[in-house]
């Protein structure tokens, strides 16, 4: 069987959906964060597959930027979470309830 760009698009859409569902149903902030990373990687797969199909490199350039930004976000996000954990000793999203959601 030949793997076409449609296969990659479906894979990307599936990964993105898993990420969105993960964000919506999980209660642990770290796992929500991992689900968000899944969404970003779905974007990366989409971009690389399209770049290969369209035979231009813009998509791959885009991917490098997405990866860099995801790394920066991870650093800042875990720092924020650490500050939160020091005060409340939990990473459960249901206990972030000082202010109403």
């Amino acid at each position, binding site marked *: 069987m030949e793997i076409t760009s449609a296969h990659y698009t479906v894979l990307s859409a599936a990964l993105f959906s898993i990420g969105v569902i993960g964000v919506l149903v999980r209660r642990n902030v770290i796992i929500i*964060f991992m689900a968000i990373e899944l969404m970003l990687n779905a974007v990366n797969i989409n971009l690389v597959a399209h770049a290969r199909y369209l035979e231009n490199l813009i998509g791959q350039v*885009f991917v490098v930027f997405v990866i860099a930004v995801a790394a920066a976000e991870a650093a800042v996000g875990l720092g924020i979470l650490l500050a939160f954990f020091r*005060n409340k000793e939990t990473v459960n999203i249901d206990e*972030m309830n000082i202010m109403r*959601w």
Partner: protein
Amino acid sequence: MPPGFSASDFYYILPELVLTGGALVVLLLSVVTPRRDGLLLGVSLATVAATLLGVASFAGLDETVSRGLLAIDGFAAFFKVVVLVSAALTLLMSAPYLRVEGLRAGEYYFLILCATLGMMFMASGVDLITLFIGLETMAVSFYVLAGYLKPNPRSNEAAVKYFLLGAFSLGVLLYGMSILYGVTGTTNLAATAAALSGQGPSLVLVLAVVLVGAGMGFKIAAVPFHMWAPDVYEGAPTPVTAFLSVGSKAASFAMLIRIFLEGLPSLGGEWTFLFYLLAIITMTVGNIAALTQSNLKRLLAYSSIAHAGYLLMGVVAGTERGVAAMLVYLGVYLFMQLGAFAVVAAMRRSDVVGDELKDLTGLSRRSPMAAFAMLFFMLSLGGIPPTAGFMGKIWLFGAAIDAGFVWLAVIAVANSAVSLYYYLRVVVFMWINDETAPAASPLVIGPAMTVALVVALFGTVLFGLYPQFLFEHAEAAARTLEGIGAGVALR
């Protein structure tokens, strides 16, 4: 010469380079000379002023530079000025606030300048990658700033919520962008518009419009995507909230207009309908939710959500006049919203948090100047005649009617009437005289805060009496935009 960047590309981003350099100097100075907060504030303000001069010196240009990544045009210049003025006012009101909270000023000013840098690239980017990098430069700075009060659980919570929903919205936005790239084979907005011209709306393109629209909806806090805004606005340090509600919103609107008007004019019918619905829900829900708030920052958060709804009317209209009216309203909103937050920041003292509505009790006697300024900001936000807010609303609603969206304008007028209730409630609290109020001592307002309040008040009054200046610049800015008049389908 091999294809690549030439010196002229760097010439056109000189203002941004000055801002970057200034931000780094601030960060270095905070390490070399700790606890010289006045010096740091001076350097930060000088950097913003120098950047403003640089932007002004490029006024009148209409060029695409850096191999089609950036547009140096009137539209970008208008937003850069809005963003830089709001950064300067934020810095001014931050200085006394940081002193009360006992926070280090160096990193704080650095992050404010970094966020401003990101906003400037959002204003001038005409390529999806540039816009996304600008957006993230701004957003990551704001994640840190929202949680800057590290021992304060409210601030922690605000930062976590803002970070999670910001990162989630980024994923949605990027997925939409990746679909657009897959369909058109380019990330340049002009090339996207060219590739899509003459194509009917396919299912994939509608999906991309919805995803990108939802991602941008998070950033401007439009209603189904607004749930982060009240919590983050309440928990973040007050000057950060002010900058978030003005600078971040203005830059996100610039990006939204660039993507949809310049990049997707052939899908005008689809996104006009999307934003038409968003505008109505946003202004209605924002105003109704604001009615019952007892926390002043939360009230202003819902008010700013409602204002995002009004501003969306300019995007829905999609005409040159609509965009110009939106720019006018942003220019006005800048002063009244920052002014209102400056009053809230001024009420923060070592023993009083001062962000509850009841903390305003008797403000007219404790600080007549602050109460008088707040009165003007509230009247302006509500859209009462001699103020700038009235002029902005007249133009915005007029533009919507002009473009054929009469019902939208009617709903907006009804919403403005509802909003008067909670703005006037704030005013009533200031004039209640309650001798038993715990914080009945006079409110001392320092020099930096006074400057911020006076500038905000000056803008609110001046543009109410003499709006032509703002109108002319907004019209000139809107004229430089490509793809005007795309959303004709609903007319």
